[in-house]
């Protein structure tokens, strides 16, 4: 099973580049994921937050176009803009002005809608601790070979993100949720994108390995919206997601664009705020991580008649990785090196039996004997000795 997966993945690179299989196979071992998931969350409700729903739906559209199926996308929209009474064009959500692009077609599957989008549900989706009656479409059924894309948008502040205008999730909670996911082996690599005001504060507290984070603005800056549409009457998109979408429109499933290009999306001249990113927890070089590793689900199969020695390539990739990640504390990508993480919880302390101190026992029984002899007379002493 594993050989087949390896085989299929490595053949992908074969088709993209030249017939030089060995070179591509080396590259393929660098990613290590076999499936892709996406969790796309819009946290704001009310009509004037139309742009947040449009943001999320645009990313949804790109992700679907690049190959991630609906069964692997958890889409959470806190409000229904398409059927809102104030929408002059019902059943549509536009992301470009002049109604160029309707991101709400008839194949949009929203998994968590309206009031179901809460901090609790979001954290439960991430950690997998859902009640047994939850349907599959509402679950994040990732495993340790999944690359997950998490996209959050809404209103935020320094260290928190507001859900539904009534509760917040803090950056510490989010970091702990990711750590739970890491300890439960729920992701291979995770890309976290957030488009809110002061979004960089949300990834400050991450401490689990294999996380890469992007944010639309630094702490102290606001993320601004892009363009209003005068017919609909609200802003349609946020700047960062607008330029992100433009960038993603150029990506196709065979594209070789890597994360470094993603960091360049929306410079200050276009975005007014300064987008930030965090890659120190990511074990690979971001330059070797493809956009399609997270935004797409690449599944092409090529047939080759050559024989390839896979073990050499693994060692080669490892060495390359050690070289680039030498200054990190995390162990190299070898299964045995995950063993420290395989015992996530501290061992139960050894059951040592507690004994009362000897001085106490001595003192207590001396007292008892004293009282006894005082009451009943010293003549009983001879029965002891």
């Amino acid at each position, binding site marked *: 099973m594993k050989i087949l997966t390896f085989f299929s993945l490595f053949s992908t690179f074969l088709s993209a580049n030249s017939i030089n299989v060995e070179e591509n196979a080396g590259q393929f071992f660098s990613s290590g994921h076999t499936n892709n998931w996406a969790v796309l969350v819009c946290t704001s409700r009310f009509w004037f937050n139309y742009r947040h729903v449009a943001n999320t739906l645009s990313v949804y559209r790109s992700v679907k176009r690049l190959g991630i199926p609906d069964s692997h996308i958890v889409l959470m929209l806190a409000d229904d803009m398409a059927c809102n009474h104030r929408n002059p064009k019902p059943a549509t959500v536009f992301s470009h002005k002049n109604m160029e692009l309707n991101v709400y077609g008839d194949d949009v599957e929203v998994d968590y809608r309206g009031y179901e989008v809460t901090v609790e549900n979001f954290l439960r989706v991430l950690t997998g601790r859902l009640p047994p009656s939850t349907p599959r479409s509402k679950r994040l059924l990732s495993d340790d070979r999944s690359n997950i894309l998490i996209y959050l948008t809404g209103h935020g502040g320094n260290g928190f993100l507001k859900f539904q205008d009534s509760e917040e999730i803090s950056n510490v909670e989010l970091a702990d949720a990711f750590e739970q996911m890491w300890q439960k082996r729920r992701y291979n690599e995770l890309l976290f994108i957030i488009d809110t005001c002061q979004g960089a504060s949300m990834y400050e507290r991450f401490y689990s390995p294999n996380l890469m984070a992007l944010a639309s603005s630094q702490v102290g800056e606001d993320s601004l919206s892009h363009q209003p549409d005068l017919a609909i009457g609200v802003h349609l998109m946020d700047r960062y997601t607008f330029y992100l979408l433009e960038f993603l429109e150029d990506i196709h499933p065979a594209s070789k664009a890597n994360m470094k290009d993603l960091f360049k999306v929306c410079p200050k001249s276009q975005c007014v705020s300064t987008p930030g990113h965090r890659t120190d927890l990511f074990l690979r070089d971001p330059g070797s991580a493809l956009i399609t590793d997270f935004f797409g689900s690449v599944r092409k199969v090529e047939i080759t008649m050559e024989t390839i020695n896979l073990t050499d390539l693994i060692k080669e990739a490892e060495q390359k990785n050690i070289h680039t990640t030498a200054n990190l504390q995390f162990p190299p990508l070898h299964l045995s090196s995950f063993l420290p993480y395989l015992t996530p919880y501290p061992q139960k*302390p050894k*059951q*040592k*039996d*507690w*004994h*009362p*101190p000897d*001085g*106490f*026992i001595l*003192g*207590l029984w001396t*007292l008892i004997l004293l*009282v006894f002899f*005082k*009451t009943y007379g010293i003549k009983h002493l001879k029965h002891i000795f």
Partner: protein
Amino acid sequence: MAAPLTLLLIVAVTIRAALYRSSLADLISERVEVVSPLTAWKRVVEGLALLDLGVSPYSGDVFHETPLIIYFFHFLVDYAEITFMLADVITAVALYMTVKDYNKQVFRKQKYALEADRYPLDCLELIRSPKEMYYIPLKVAMFYLLNPFTILSCVAKSTCGLNNAVIALFILSTIKGNVLLSAVFLSLATYQSIYPLTLCAAALLYLMQRQYIPVNYRRASFWWFIAQYAFMYLGSLFVIVCLSFFLLGSWDYLPSVYGFILSVPDLTPNIGLFWYFFAEMFEHFRLFFLCVFQINVFFYTIPLSIKLKEHPVFLIFMQLAVISIFKSYPTVGDIALYLAFLPVWSHLHRFLRNIFLVSCVLLACSALFPVLWHLWIYAGSANSNFYYAITLLFNVAQILLVSDYFYAFLRREHHLTYGLYLKRKDGSEATLVLK
């Protein structure tokens, strides 16, 4: 009388053993009327488990027993059922011996008074005879052992049984006249829960009368005896407290045990009066009302001991009742202890006015406690007011019982001094009113 007592003990132990083996044991050990945060067996086991894990059992709000209980149960936790049955047996035997001795003294005093012609002629029907007093000790042991409250308390493995045993031993040693043992057991009882401190006055009065020291604050021998007793009592209390320090090497049992009893932080409903008041009280007034409630327990000592200074054993009974009603976490086990004394005053039945009312209310409330708890917690159709109403009614019935006995006792004493059929100066019949 050893044979009937042994038979009674066997019957009681059988009942308890049978209940231990049935499925009711788990149900009973969770009832809030039977266990309180101070006496629950679950918490003892939890504390011992914490100790085995290397953590002090007093960290957190789980364990509120004294270190001597830790030491005691460290070795006996597997034999807990036998321990509690043994505690009940010891209590019953101690009460039996106490009441036997007390009856002898009562009869002797009565004989001297008869010979000295101190009783008016028409109250001879109030004189007690050995024949009627013969079965009283057995009745006392029976009242304690076969009381449903005691059985429930024993089956729930509530440490109230141990507290009762210590208090019973204290009463036994006081009646027997042994000053040292009385002080030691009283200090043990106070160490376990603070309230038996009020029994000090009664013990002092009794021991002084037994040693023929006149109870007169102007006499030096009075103060000297008090000094002796206080020294023994405080000394043994100090020794026990220091010894408890050496068990775990820290003083944090003091706020956990005594701070807990005095400051009542846990407001789990029980059959007492504290929880409802303090649940709805503003923080600003909490300290004030805490002081008021706690002083209420200790306050009745002084007037009662002044009024009952000739009758210290009745004073002990009254004090036990006051403690059981007004303590911060009462359980039915505390009530069982003073109810056991009722046969001793069975000769007062002709002066008791509220027997029917009190017994009906007590029975009804005991039956309604689980019903209203279920309605409140499980069915959701009642609320805490319902349960508190029954608690209030139960306590009112207890207070009525105690005050009724008080009235009857004093009235009998009055009749013994002034005659049974009271006449006013003009010869018409008079009635006696307790003022």
